Every structure is written in C-alpha cells, then in structure tokens.
C-alpha cells in the first residue's frame, strides 16, 4: 500500500503539480498588462525599484526557476496587491472558509445522494425508486447558479428564515452547502442506485440470502462495499469540483473564500497570488484524488492485489 501511494505521488502527483505551476506561470506572465500598470502612474524610477524588489527585472526563465524553487520550499511568494501580506497567509485565511463550505456540501451530497440511491435500488420501479430518482434528475438539471439564487429567493427573501449573505452564523452554512452539494448529491444518487442494482443481482447475494441472513445484513455487509464503488470513484472528481465550484457559490452568497481571491487576483494581475492559489488548489485536488484512490483500493481487494 505504501508503495502504491509513493508511486502515485512521484509519477503522477508531482508531474501534475509541475505542469500546473508551469502552465499558470507562463499564462500569467504572457498576458497583457502588469501588476502595477493599472494603478496610478508610477515614475520610471519607482517602477524599476519595484521590479527589482520583486525580481521582475530578471529574465523570465530565471524568474520561473526561482519561483519553482520557492514553491518546492512551500513559499508561495509575496502579494502585489496586499503589500503587507504573503500569499501563504492570504491563502491560509481564505482556504479554511472554502474548505468548510466544501466539506458541508460534501456531507450533504454523500448523506442525501448515497442514501437516496440505496433506497431507490431496493425496490426498483416502485415509487420509492421513482421519487428519489426524479429528484436526482432535477438536481442534475438545476445548476448551482440557478438553484442558489432560487433558494435565496425562497428561504432568504420570501420566508426570511436565513440571512441573504455572509458567513457568520451556523445558519449561513445551510443554503451555500445545499447549493454546492445538490448536483453532486444527484450524481451520487444515480451512481449508487446503478451500483447497488448491479451488485444486488449478483450470484453472491443469493448465496448470502441462502445463508438465512436478514435483508439488513445482506445489504450492509454483502452489497454495500461493492455497490458503493462507482460512487467512491466519483468522489475524486467530485471533491475537486467542490473546491473549484466554490467560485459561483461564493459569489452568490458573498463568502470570503479562495474562489473570490483567485478572481480578484486575476483582475489585479497579482502574479504570485494567482500562481499560489492555483498551485495550492492543484495540490489539494491531487491529495483528494490520492485519498480516494486509497479508499478504493481498501474497498476492492482485487484492485489491491493487481497493483
């Protein structure tokens, strides 16, 4: 297992991170405009000293090499816009917000999605199947930027149950989490139903029933592990989506997370902040994918032996 993790780390995670950093670096630097050009005109002398201070006067390749070396040490550099703060500390402030939002959304998606999928799979083609699956279809067809405002309209403005914006009280977490998680809940419900239907029709389920096991035990012990595998492999991309998908939800509900930082940084040409945030998100995605791979290997013994 350790070998498996190390191999994934060195042959997939590191190259991916390298590609992300490189692509972002050159994309940012090749774009027209610079961090200080939009601000009030600065004298050539000040400009030169600023460039020297941030190392922008060196050839691009040298800057690139230096940046990679810093990233490797975990230093994401200074921010141009927020002169007093480093990129590290900006991310350290915004990421917990995005992470919390993502985790609540993930919790909502897993509980409702997998729950609905299991319920639907037990009695196919009855109303306990059709009901959850209709809801799942609706969840897939209602994107977050439609669902979020609609939820706000209903529960925030019309009923007045929750605050319309902000990230302070526990109640502020509910609508953003549902908005962000609904689509994933819908996909999970469909994947879980399909996976469970597949497993429940297998011979070994008949063996389990022939042993006189209760339906609960048949489902929990014998069917769930295999039936949830498709859902677990979906969780990798899902977690990645939950992190990058916070852009819209953060802007709808005005939540001070990582998504807002990236959009603002891009507008301001805040080079190191853009780079740092993207590299950091890439890092988080890779870690999540690795965790999901490990979970999958733990659940499926055949996978474990093969690799």
């Amino acid at each position, binding site marked *: 297992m350790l070998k498996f993790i190390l191999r994934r780390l060195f042959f997939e995670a590191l190259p991916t991170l390298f590609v992300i950093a490189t692509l972002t670096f050159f994309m940012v630097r090749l774009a027209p405009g610079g961090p200080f050009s939009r601000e009030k005109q600065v004298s050539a002398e000040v400009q030169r000293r600023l460039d020297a201070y941030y190392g922008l006067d060196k050839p691009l390749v040298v800057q690139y090499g230096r940046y990679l070396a810093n990233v490797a040490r975990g230093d994401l550099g200074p921010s141009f816009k927020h002169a007093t703060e480093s990129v590290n500390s900006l991310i350290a402030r915004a990421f917990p917000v995005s992470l919390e939002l993502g985790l609540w959304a993930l919790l909502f998606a897993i509980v409702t999605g997998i729950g609905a999928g299991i319920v639907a799979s037990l009695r196919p083609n009855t109303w306990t199947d059709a009901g959850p699956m209709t809801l799942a279809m609706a969840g897939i067809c209602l994107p977050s930027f439609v669902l979020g405002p609609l939820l706000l309209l209903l529960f925030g403005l019309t009923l007045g149950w929750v605050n319309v914006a902000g990230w302070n009280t526990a109640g502020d977490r509910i609508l953003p989490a549902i908005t962000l998680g609904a689509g994933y809940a819908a996909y999970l419900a469909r994947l879980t139903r399909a996976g469970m239907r597949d497993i429940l029709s297998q011979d*070994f389920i*008949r*063996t*389990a029933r022939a*042993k*006189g096991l209760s339906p609960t*035990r048949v489902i929990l012990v014998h069917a769930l*592990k295999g039936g949830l595998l498709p859902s677990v492999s979906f969780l990798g991309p899902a977690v990645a989506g939950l992190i990058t998908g916070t852009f819209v939800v953060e802007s709808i509900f005005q939540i001070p997370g990582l998504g807002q930082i990236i959009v603002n940084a891009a507008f301001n040409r805040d080079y190191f902040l853009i780079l740092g945030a993207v590299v950091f998100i890439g890092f988080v995605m890779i870690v999540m994918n690795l965790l999901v791979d490990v979970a999958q290997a733990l659940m499926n*013994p055949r996978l474990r032996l093969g690799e």
Partner: protein
Amino acid sequence: MPLLNVQDLSVGFHTRHGVVRAVNHVSFSLEPGDSLGIVGESGSGKSVTCLSLLGLLPMPPARIESGAAAFDGQDLLRLPAAKLRGILGRDIAMIFQDPMTSLNPYLRIATQLTEPLLVHKGLSRAAAFKQAAAALGGVGIADPEARLNQYPHEFSGGMRQRVMIAMATITRPRLLIADEPTTALDVTVQAQILELIKTLRREHGTAVIFITHNLAVINGIADRVMVMYAGQAVETAPVPAIFHQPLHPYTAALLRSVPSAHKPGEPLQSILGTPPDPLRLPPGCPFTPRCPFAQEPCSLATTAELELGPVPSPAPDRRLTACIRVKKEGADVLRPA
C-alpha cells in the same frame, strides 16, 4: 416421518409475454440422511424447484401457484420470512453452480465462512474463526488459518467450491441442496468435489438433494433419482434401477445419449427435436412431440393422469412414472419394436 415432503408444487413466472410454468405439480419426499438426485436438461425446472422452497426466487416475477413443502413439520412455503431465515443456513444449506460468482469478492473468506456461525449459533468471533479454520481443513484446504484471511480471487475454481461446501456444512445442516456443484469445474476437479460431498454426507449423516443435468454424475452420490422434463417430474426410481430399466421414454432417451451410461455396443443417440417453449407447452404429456412411443391418448392426458404413479409389472419397488402408457400397459411398452 420424512425430513422434507414436497406436495403438488407449482411455480409460475409472470412475464410480459405470458406465464411461464416453470414447475408443474411436482411432489417428492426425502428421509433424514437420504440422498435424492434431480436430473433434467436446463430449463426443466430442477433449480427453480429448490430455489422456490428456500424463498430465493425473485418475486415478482416468480409466484408459487400451489403446493406445500413440509420440513420438519413446518411448511417452508408459508413460513414468515424471519422464521424461514432461521432455518436457512442452519438446517438447510445450499451450494450453487458457479463458485467463481457465488462467493462475495469484496469480503475475506473468514467473514463469509464465520457468518452462519455468528448469525445462527451465536458463537464468539474467536470461536467461529477456530471452527471455520477446522471446516476449511475438513474440505481439504491446506494452511486454513492463513487462507481464511484471503479473498475469493486468490482461490482457484475448485478451491472456491470447497470453500462453498465448507460454508454450507459449517452449521451441520440436516439438508444440503447442491445445485450443479460440479458443472462449472474441470473434469478432474469434479470427481474430487463429488468425493468430498459423499464423505461429508457419510460423516455427518446429512440429507442431500443433488441437482444435475448429467445422469452419470448421479451414480454413487444419490440413492434415488427424480427426472424432470418441462417443469414436470416424469420418473422417480432408485438409482441402480433407473440405469437398469428406465420407465419413462424421456429417461430412456436420456440414458441412450449419455456416453458412460449407455449399453456397450449400442450407438449413442441424441434426443430428436427440442424442448418445448415454456410459454406454449403442448397439451397433455409435454414429451409427446419428441416421444417415439407416443400414441393419441398421450396428447389428451390430463394433469392428474400425468402425475407420478406406480408401475404395473414388473413393478420393482418404489418406482413411479408419469408415462400413461407405461402405467397402463407396463414396462414392456418401452421395448424397441
């Protein structure tokens, strides 16, 4: 008192195209420690008969149309689900055809093997593990304690069937139903598995129902045999007697098509025609269209006439046939002209 007494069992599958009568008015019984073979080609209803007794058929589409199955005085077909579960895996156990798919690939052998003990006997995990190791050793698997921690995909087909047998017999059931347990295995492994079932039966005195499409396999493992065709029981007899003198045209045809059972010097013959469409069974005896001995009354026979009945001369003991000509005119009818 018989251990299992099945009377007038009928099972139908209700499909969009009509009702498939998979089992038609089948009756048989089994004494404790007795061994019955059920023989028939695929689709003859032999598996459905046993699965319906254990409540393992998907319902719908399957439906039990009639019958009773007394096990130990309790009617399996009318028992509440929870009560039936108390009997399955404890007093009645089943082995399935394909050992590659019948074990759960996601669970360790130990989990699956100890499950009946934990659920039915209330054993502790440690005690169950010990007994599981002993059972695994008992079916001829070396190094059982280490093997218990492995997963099914680490076993060969024959080994998996041994595991299935160990799992089925670990609670010392009084009835073991083996549904074509050797069909999916290599010929050399088949013999080992048959030998194993025989040994276990001898040691524990378990009654066995052995389902197969291969008459030759029956020899040595079953005391009596019931032959099924198109959902009906067409003949039952003690095993040696049926090889000596079949008393139903279908059995006779079956014997002539089995290499190891046919008489030396006679040519091997296949049965002409194909089994009837289960949605449109022919009237009267379902074998009539393929039967070389059929006469007009055969296609007019009623269901009651086609049930197993005693044979006149030379009525050997405990022989029953559904052939109305044999029942009326005796065994000599089946002599080739």
